[in-house]
Structure formats: C-alpha cells, structure tokens
C-alpha cells in the first residue's frame, strides 16, 4: 500500500536533483567543447564560447545545488536525510554553514564550489591558455559533480546524493515511524555534532578546501603545457597560483592545528594524525613545486621535476581525499569520515589523473629541452633544487607511514602503525627541518648561476655567528644542555640561523625594499614556525604532576608520566608554581563548565588570583562525551588545562543521604584507614555482644568489631558492627556513625589472626565532588603563530611580485 505522506517538500529535492544533473551536464559540455577547441588549434571561437557556456551552466548548477541545500537546512526539511542528519531545530543559526559541510556530500560541494570560482577567474585571466586549462578544470568538475549523482549504473552506485529522502535511505526505509503518513510532524533532526559547534568549524573547512582547490590550477597548467607542448610558458601564469595555493593550504592546515590545540584534547597543535598528515604532504610537495618553478623561470633547469611535483601535488590531494573518506583509516585516525561506498569511485578518479600525468610526461619527455650546462654547485638554483628534493623525501616518509592501512589492504598484511607515532615522525623530520632551515638561511645569499665565494662568506658570516650566539643563549635559557637534546640544539641553531639570515638579507641586501622581500619575509616566518614548534614541543611541561600524596611508585618504571592531578572541590593544591582551586561547575546546554582558579603567592605570602580557566566537558551522545580544554595565553607561554575525568553521575547529587560503598578493607587490630572526613581505627574484636539487642538465640555466635573514628576536629566516635552466625547462616549487622555519614558492615572474620574484612560505606554527601585535571605549559607557542602570520604576509608579497612580472 502506498502511503501519502503529509507535509513533505518534494519539490525541493526535485529542484536539487535538477541542479545536480545540470552541473554534471554543464561540466561535460564544457570539457568536451574546450577539448575540441584546444585540439583543433583553429581560431574557431565558437567552440570556445560553447566551452564557456558549458562552464556557466555547470556553475549555475553548482550554485543551484548549494542554494537548494541551504534553503532546505534553513527551513528544516527533515524529510531529507542530509538535513535530518546534520541539523535540528535547536541549533543556533550561526552554525548553518558548519551543518552544510559537516557531511561528505556538503564537503564535496564546498570543494566543487571553489574549483568553480577558480575556473571563473581562469576564464577571464588565462588568455591563450584558457582552452587547455579549462578543459582540465572541467574534466575534474565532471568527476566531482558525479560524486553527488547518487545513481546506480550496472549495480554500482555512483556518488552520494544530498537530496535523498529519509524514507528512501535503506537503513530507514522500514522503520515503523516512517509508516506513519504524518511522521514529519514529530520529526526533529539529529543535529550538528556539538563537538563541531564552534567557529573553527566555520572557518577551517572553507580555507582548507580552497587550499585543496588551488592545487588544481598549477596542475591544469602543467597538463596544458604538456598537451600543447609548450613546456616553459605555462609556468609564468602558474607561479602566482602556486604561491597562492601554498599560502592558503598552509593556512588551512595550521588552522586545523590551532583548532586541535584550542578546542580538542590533542594536548598540542600537531599530533601526526593521519588526517593531518594527509593534507601536510601535498603542501610539502606544493612548496617544492613552487621553488623548482622559480628555478626554471630563472635558469630553465629541472623541467621534469617541476612537472612531476606540480602533478603529484594534485594527485596527493586526491589521495588524501581517498584516505580520509574511504574509511580505510578507521583504526588509526581520530577524525576520518565514514565510508559512503565511494572509495572505488575515488580510486578511479585518482588513477585517471595519475595516468593522465604519467602518460603525458612519458610522451613528451624526449622533447624536453635539455640545458647545455649543469648548474654550478655554488648557485642558488642548485640549493633550491636540493631543498625541493629534501621536502619531497620528507613528504614520502610521512605518506609512507600514513599509508600503512592501505598497504595492509593491498598486500593483506597485518602491520600496525608505529606505537609512538610522534617519536617516529619526529626522529626523521627533525633532520629534514634542520636541512631545510639551513638551506633557507643560506639560499638567498647564493646568486643565480654563480656565486663569488668570498663575497658569499663575508655576507653570511655575520648571520652565522649571530645565530651561534643566540642559540647559545637560548640553549642555556631553555636548559637544553644534555646529550639527548643534541638534535634539538642543532634544530634550534638552524631555525635561528634561518630567521637571522633572512632578516639580515632583507635589511642589508634588499635595503628594506618591501616589493622584493616576499621570499625573505616568508622564510623568516617559516623559521619562526620551526623555532616555535621546537620550543613549545620540547619544553612543554606537564605541571599537573601528582601532588595529592598518592603513591605513584606502584605504577612501575615504564610509566613515569603520571600526568593527572585530582582536585577536590574547594581544596587547593600546588601545581607547577601555582596554587589551583576547583570552585565548582555549572551546566549550560550540553556543556558542563568547571571553574578553576590559579593563584600565586606574593612577597608577603598572600595568595593572589592570577587567572581563572573554564575547561568544559561536553555531553555528546553521538560521539561520546568530550572534554574541551581551556588555555590561558601569555605572551611567552600558554597554560593549557584539560579535565580528563569528572564524575558525571548526577544521581549522587540528588540523593545526598544515600550510602555508597566506598571500599572493602581487611584490617588487623590497630590498623587504620582513611575515610573522606575521618580516620578509622580498628581496635579489635569483642565477643561481648548483647545478644538480645539483635534477637539472637543463646546458641548463636556473635562478635563485634570495635571501631574508633576520629574526625578532622579530633572528635572521637565509636561504632560496633556485629557479625553473627545463626545456626549455619552468617548474618552481619551494620553500624552507623550518623554524624560522619559512615556505615560499616563486616563481611568476613579471620579468627586465627583476629583480622576482619569490612565494607565501609559513606553517604553521598561525604564524597566531595572532584575533577581530574591535566595541565601543560607550552612556552613560546606564540612564536609559532606569529611565524604563521609572517609567512602568509611574505607569500602575499611574493604573489604580488610574480603577478607584476607575469603581466
């Protein structure tokens, strides 16, 4: 029987699907027309016009899809799976963008959108290159548009459609509530994951995806160059795009790091998580590509490497999409997407463009112009080339380890990722960073073609010795003087050297000419990023060491890092030079905020409040409860505070008079145990029990345990829990000390030794609320953030300079 459902907005889905088909067909038309236009090499502009028209159709389709989806999200059309899955009526409207791209389909749309925007800019700026470049862009768009189709071809599902009705999703189709024609009246969406309800989720994905999208432009130019056999000309327009992409992708990645540091409990800004790695790797090759392009523009060398790095960067973006979206990282990553059954499609996509690149390079390789002379070892291009290669090797190491799950899949092997990933990557990448920083330092002092050695040495000597002095000072200040720290001291020197050398190049050689200073400024920024990460990572100190008097020896020598501290409400503990107090919590929506005060002592020994932090725990039924840290920022250091455990059981607070079993103890006469508000002493067993009081017969046996309890004010109380044996049954009788909220029940007697096994109960009101805290001081992390900013500024300057050159 067909049900006529009430209140569904079927027109919205139909509109959306129309736009999906429109965008797909437009891309198809555009790619074909541009292809024919480019292949025929005639000045027949009608094909070009058709190509443009196709792209406009595609663009209106993409905008139509986005508009429809937004309309549906805004108006809460929960009959649609995507709307139901990612939004609800309670959610603040400012998170509507986050809802839009929380799901896979939405993030593909975001990616498609940026490609489309870049495509438009190319149509108006690429001039002679428009035909081949746009043919590639449109081809990519065909693949991306197909990701949203959601149609079955020969039983294989192509794409995942965001306009699918909830009742058409196989997992839901048979649920009883969908048999009700009026199901919509009661339906609310599942809502945006609270973890993602913050401003980072609004700014990080669009930036990162613009970075992803921007790798397409140099790729398209490179393919166009191979296609039209113009092996050099493409780099001129591609170079500013490459710098732009490096800047945006870099910013996107660092935003992810900042998000992890500020709001997630990674305990640092970089955890070598597979998903982080997957976007870092194409950035590294992209930076390599940008530098070899500069070499080629100046000297006409390293053509093959330029092609390879430019093409591989885009392929790596596709590969990273595959890694994060195919569910293959399932066991090894914190934030991989779920598999939507599109991994096969992504793989086809990846292999198509990989093959395209390989075939085109293979065909043309013989025709690449060969430079007559080799570059001199004392030339800038030689060392830039070495730098690009070092970055490539670094990228290779990261992607190889990150790909372990893929390797397992292909060879059905059973390798697990390194048990200590941070150490694994750092031990390799520290040396990469050292070499890169040294190259950055000396690079600009070399001239293109040939450098006069004595001039070079003279100019660089100042920076070199300056860096040695600063490194020496920093080593002492940071207390790095030990054998284990040698790699860090070397990295410290090289990053300081990179900063000093580039700054002095800017001042003494460029004479402060801002126009030409892009490279110097960006390199100073990069050096600062290295320096900041080095200081904050190597000198980060967990201050929440255990000071609560609990014995940690039993943890064993393998686990010296007991990094959590217990804070009972209103108690003050000393922690890393501060005195911390936990004042209580308050609940706001899904969040429970914990108020923690940091005090320090002034000269007179008086406590002065320095600052208050409010880390929170988020009650999150979808992902499990999540703790979000709070951080106090100072110029020189950050104090990161994170609730690692808190009792979320509200029952206890509601029933303060109820007893809760605190512990089971076995005591010999004279032994003591600690209660939460008292000291409990077992004085011994007493056979002198008033049997009538317990309704015991003459033959029954009864023994009382004589307990003495002393509270903090030194008041003494007694309790006599009784253990009786009535014929063959053991029956204990509890005894309470109501003033202290204590209760004792004997569970076993050990007559030979006079020992007794007791259960100690305490009232819920006795058990004070507590939280467990982890606090870390990160020194120098602001150097890192300042470095990011400076690097972006430098890249903008470089783009401006290159744009002027290419016009």
């Amino acid at each position, binding site marked *: 029987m067909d049900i006529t459902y009430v209140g569904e907005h079927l027109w919205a889905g139909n509109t959306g699907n129309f736009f999906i088909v429109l965008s797909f067909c437009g891309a198809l038309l555009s790619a074909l027309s541009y292809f024919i236009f480019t292949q025929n090499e005639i000045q027949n502009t009608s094909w070009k016009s058709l190509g443009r028209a196709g792209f406009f159709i595609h663009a209106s389709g993409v905008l139509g899809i986005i508009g429809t989806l937004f309309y549906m999200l805004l108006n809460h059309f929960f009959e649609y799976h995507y709307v139901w899955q990612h939004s609800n009526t309670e959610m603040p409207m400012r998170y509507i963008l986050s809802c839009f791209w929380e799901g896979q389909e939405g993030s593909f749309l975001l990616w498609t959108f940026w490609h489309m925007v870049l495509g438009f800019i190319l149509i108006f700026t690429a001039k002679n290159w428009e035909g081949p470049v746009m043919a590639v862009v449109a081809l990519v768009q065909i693949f991306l548009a197909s990701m949203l189709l959601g149609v079955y071809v020969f039983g294989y599902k192509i794409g995942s459609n965001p306009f699918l009705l909830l009742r058409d999703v196989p997992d839901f189709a048979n649920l009883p509530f969908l048999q009700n024609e009026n199901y919509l009246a009661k339906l609310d969406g599942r809502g945006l994951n609270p973890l993602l309800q913050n401003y980072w989720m609004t700014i990080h994905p669009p930036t990162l995806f613009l970075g992803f999208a921007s790798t397409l432009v140099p790729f398209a130019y490179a393919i166009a160059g191979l296609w039209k056999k113009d092996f050099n000309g493409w780099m001129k327009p591609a170079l500013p795009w490459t710098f732009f992409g490096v800047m945006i992708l870099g910013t996107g990645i660092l935003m992810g790091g900042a998000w992890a540091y500020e709001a997630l409990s990674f305990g640092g800004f970089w955890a070598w998580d597979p998903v982080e790695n997957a976007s870092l790797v194409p950035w590294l090759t992209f930076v390599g590509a940008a530098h070899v392009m500069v070499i080629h523009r100046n000297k006409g060398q390293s053509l093959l490497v330029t092609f390879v790095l430019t093409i591989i960067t885009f392929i790596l973006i596709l590969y990273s999409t595959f890694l994060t979206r195919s569910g293959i990282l399932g066991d090894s990553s914190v934030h991989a997407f779920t598999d939507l059954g599109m991994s096969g499609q992504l793989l086809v996509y990846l292999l198509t463009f990989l093959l395209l690149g390989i075939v085109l390079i293979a065909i043309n390789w013989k025709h690449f112009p060969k430079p007559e002379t080799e570059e001199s070892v004392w030339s800038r291009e030689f060392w830039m*080339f070495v730098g690009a290669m070092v970055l490539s090797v670094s990228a290779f190491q990261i992607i190889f380890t990150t790909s372990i799950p893929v390797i397992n899949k292909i060879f059905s092997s059973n390798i697990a990722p*390194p048990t200590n990933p941070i150490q694994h990557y750092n031990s390799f990448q520290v040396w990469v960073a050292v070499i890169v920083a040294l190259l950055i330092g000396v690079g600009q002092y070399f001239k293109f073609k040939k450098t006069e050695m004595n001039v070079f040495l003279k100019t660089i000597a100042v920076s070199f010795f300056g860096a040695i002095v600063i490194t020496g000072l920093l080593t002492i200040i940071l207390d790095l003087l030990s054998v284990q720290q040698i790699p860090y001291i070397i990295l410290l020197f090289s990053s300081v050297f990179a900063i000093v050398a580039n700054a002095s190049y800017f001042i003494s050689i460029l004479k402060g000419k801002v126009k030409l200073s892009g490279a110097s400024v960006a390199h100073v920024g990069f050096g600062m990023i290295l320096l900041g990460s080095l200081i904050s990572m190597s000198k980060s100190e967990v201050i929440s060491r255990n000071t609560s008097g609990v014995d940690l020896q039993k943890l064993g020598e393998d686990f010296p890092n007991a*990094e959590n501290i217990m804070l009972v409400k209103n108690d003050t503990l000393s922690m890393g030079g501060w005195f911390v107090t936990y004042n209580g919590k308050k609940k706001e929506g899904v969040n429970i905020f914990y108020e923690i005060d940091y005090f320090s002592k002034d000269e007179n020994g008086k406590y002065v409040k320095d600052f208050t932090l409010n880390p929170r725990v988020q009650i999150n039924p979808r992902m499990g409860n999540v703790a979000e840290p709070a951080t106090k920022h100072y110029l020189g250091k950050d104090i990161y505070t994170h609730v690692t455990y808190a009792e979320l059981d509200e029952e206890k607070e509601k029933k303060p008079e109820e007893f809760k079993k605190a512990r089971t103890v076995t005591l010999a006469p004279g032994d003591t145990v600690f209660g939460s508000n008292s000291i409990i002493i077992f004085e011994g067993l007493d056979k002198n029990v008033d049997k009538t009081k317990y309704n015991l017969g003459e033959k029954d046996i009864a023994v009382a345990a004589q307990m003495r309890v002393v509270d903090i004010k030194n008041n003494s109380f007694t309790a006599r829990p009784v253990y009786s044996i009535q014929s063959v049954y053991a029956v204990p009788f509890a005894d309470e000390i109501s003033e202290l909220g204590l209760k004792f029940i004997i569970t076993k007697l050990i007559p030979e030794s006079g020992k007794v096994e007791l259960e100690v109960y305490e009232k819920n009101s006795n058990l004070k609320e507590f939280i467990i805290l982890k606090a870390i001081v990160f020194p120098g992390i602001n150097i890192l953030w300042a470095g990011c900013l400076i690097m972006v500024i430098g890249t903008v300057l470089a783009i401006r300079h290159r744009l002027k050159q290419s016009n």
Partner: protein
Amino acid sequence: MKKSHIIAIIIIAVAIGAILTTVGDSSTYASFAVAAENSGKEYHVVGKLEKDSALIYNPQENVNLFTFYLKDTDGAVKKVLYHGTKPQDFERSEQVVLVGKMKEDGFQANTILMKCPSKYNEGKPEETEHKAQI
C-alpha cells in the same frame, strides 16, 4: 657523473632509509597470546570490552590507574591496566584498540583507541574514536 645523478642516488638512499625506519618502528596487530610470548615488545591488540567484568577506576586512590577486562579477537580475556584516567564513556565502546605490552599482572596499555556505537544508527558503530594517551 652528473650532479643530478648524485642527488638522485642520495634521495633514493634516504627514501629507502625512510621505508626501513617505518618498518622498524611499526607494530603488529596481535592477540594477547602473541603479546604474552614477547612480553617486552609493544603490540596493537584489538578486542571488545568485557562489559560484565569489573571496570575499576578509583581516582581517590590512584588517579592514573584504570583497569578493565578485554576479550581479544581470539576470544581470550585478559586484565588490562591503563595508566591514565578512565576515558569518558568507555562503557559504551564497541571496539577497543590497545597499544602496549604484556606484563605479569596484565596487559599494560599506554594508548586506548575506542570506537563508539551511535545512538541513532541502529547499532551501527560510528567511525569515530577517542584517543586517550598518557
């Protein structure tokens, strides 16, 4: 020999070095039995939480000790000691991946990765994990 060839050789050598360090640093997915045979070595053990057995976390006594029982993929149940705080919502975990080594008193885990089922997906586990690390 051209300089580009020298560079190429060095790069290939370093790349092979990178592969070797990865292989050297990599661990293996193993059962408790295998981990017990090589008790000094770190392994990844995949399993399910034994929800009926005791989950002990007494922060008043020791903030940094959490013990529970895990059934590995071979069905063997072992006590696990994790020297950190109890991960939030641990009871709800569907699948647990431990990283650590076997000792006499149980499996000493230094990392716990857990997968939680979603309330909404009719018991289908959601592919998100909590990483708890010391």
